[in-house]
């Protein structure tokens, strides 16, 4: 876990890069031949997709480590990475819907990647809900790690089942599949969201660790009014 102000610097750097890349993509990069200005959402959409998958992959690693090692830090990292991954995946679905309406004519289509991302939001969102309803920190850590491993193992099956069911989405975008003119804003935004994600995961890890410490701390002593005896204070 990062200490001191380092996570804040990551967040600040991420925001700056995101502003730079988005300004470049919105105002200076050329418009795409067929989609026109609608394509400009790709600069955040594709970058969000890469980082959302990265956050949830990190969540899987944290879940395995939380089950394997007794270090509670992995549980804090798991909580932080699931939260960040769910937020990024939800943003990804929203950006996809905004792009899909003018391009495909519908807000939502049952395409494999779209549907798998929505399933991921609900599967990992369910784990966050589970954490809220388990009071014992040891059970909470184990159960959420187990649920995260199972949800991660389910992702390829969900993807292939929906792919067999229906498919419309275009091929994955990467710097190799898009014109050179679009490379730099996409790369800058991807880096921006990466730094933002690292900063947010570090900060949330710290909050989760502090919350755990507070849960395990002994109860605060009862305040004794001035002039009252200890026995009276204990009774009150």
């Amino acid at each position, binding site marked *: 876990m990062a200490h001191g102000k380092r996570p804040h610097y990551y967040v600040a750097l991420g925001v700056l890069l995101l502003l730079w890349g988005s300004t470049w993509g919105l105002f200076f990069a050329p418009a795409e031949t067929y989609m026109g200005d609608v394509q400009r959402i790709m600069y955040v959409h594709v970058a969000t997709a890469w980082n959302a998958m990265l956050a949830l992959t990190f969540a899987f690693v944290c879940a395995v480590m939380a089950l394997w090692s007794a270090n509670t830090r992995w549980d804090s990292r798991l909580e932080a990475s699931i939260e960040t991954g769910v937020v990024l995946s939800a943003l990804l679905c929203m950006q996809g819907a905004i792009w899909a309406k003018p391009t495909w004519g519908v807000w939502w289509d049952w395409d494999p990647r779209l549907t798998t991302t929505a399933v*991921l939001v609900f599967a990992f969102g369910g784990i966050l809900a*589970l954490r809220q309803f388990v009071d014992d920190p040891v059970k909470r850590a184990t159960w959420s790690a*187990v649920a995260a491993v199972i949800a991660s193992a389910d992702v390829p099956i969900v993807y292939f089942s929906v792919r067999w*069911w229906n498919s419309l989405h275009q091929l994955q975008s990467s710097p190799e599949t898009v014109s050179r003119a679009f490379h730099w804003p996409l790369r800058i935004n991807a880096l921006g969201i990466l730094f933002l994600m690292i900063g947010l995961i570090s900060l949330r890890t710290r909050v989760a660790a502090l919350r755990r410490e507070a849960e395990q701390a002994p109860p605060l002593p009862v305040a004794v009014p001035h002039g009252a005896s200890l026995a009276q204070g204990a009774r009150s």
Partner: protein
Amino acid sequence: MKALWAALRKDLLLQWRTRAQAAAVYAFGASALLLFSFAVGPQAALLREQAAGFLWLGLMLSSTLTLAESFQAEAEQRALEGLLLLPASPRALYYAKALANTAALFLLGAGLLPMMVILYDAATPRVPPLLGIVLLGSAGLSAPGTLYAAMTSQARARQTLLPLLLFPLVVPVLLASVKATSLIIHGDPMGQLGSWTLLLTCFNVIHWSLCGLLFERVVED
């Protein structure tokens, strides 16, 4: 293996003794099938076309009631801790419970089939393959469902948590079961039934292995 049989016998006996609850779950599933038809309207052709989807949605919704209650006896008076003290592997306890849940869901699904035929006019002479799909689908719901039921039975708001955790996970089971059931009812000119059955089988193999491995960690801590 001996421990697995003993635990399975115990779980099947528990299911038999709480059969009044199973009847209530069946009534819930049947009423869900009745209500789904109101969402579509009295169009016989459309209802027949969607029959498989309605059957599996009904079974999936009912399954949460069966699964949520499956660890109720173990949650009361710390009976689970007593079971774990026995010279039996926690894995045997998991597989016994998951098999008993599969049996309960299979019976529920098989019981809902006549309702589907009557309400949606979705009859088929191919009953054995249909029962095979109901069995595979029930096993697919039961494997992760049993593991999550073990967790949520010890948590607050278990009736809400179980479907919240289970439903996104069993999307492949729902898709494959609906498709396979539909192909059996309406015919399979492109020979797709094998692929969907294979997907259901793969889901079952992965989840029965993985959940069996992880169950020990869920009940140990």
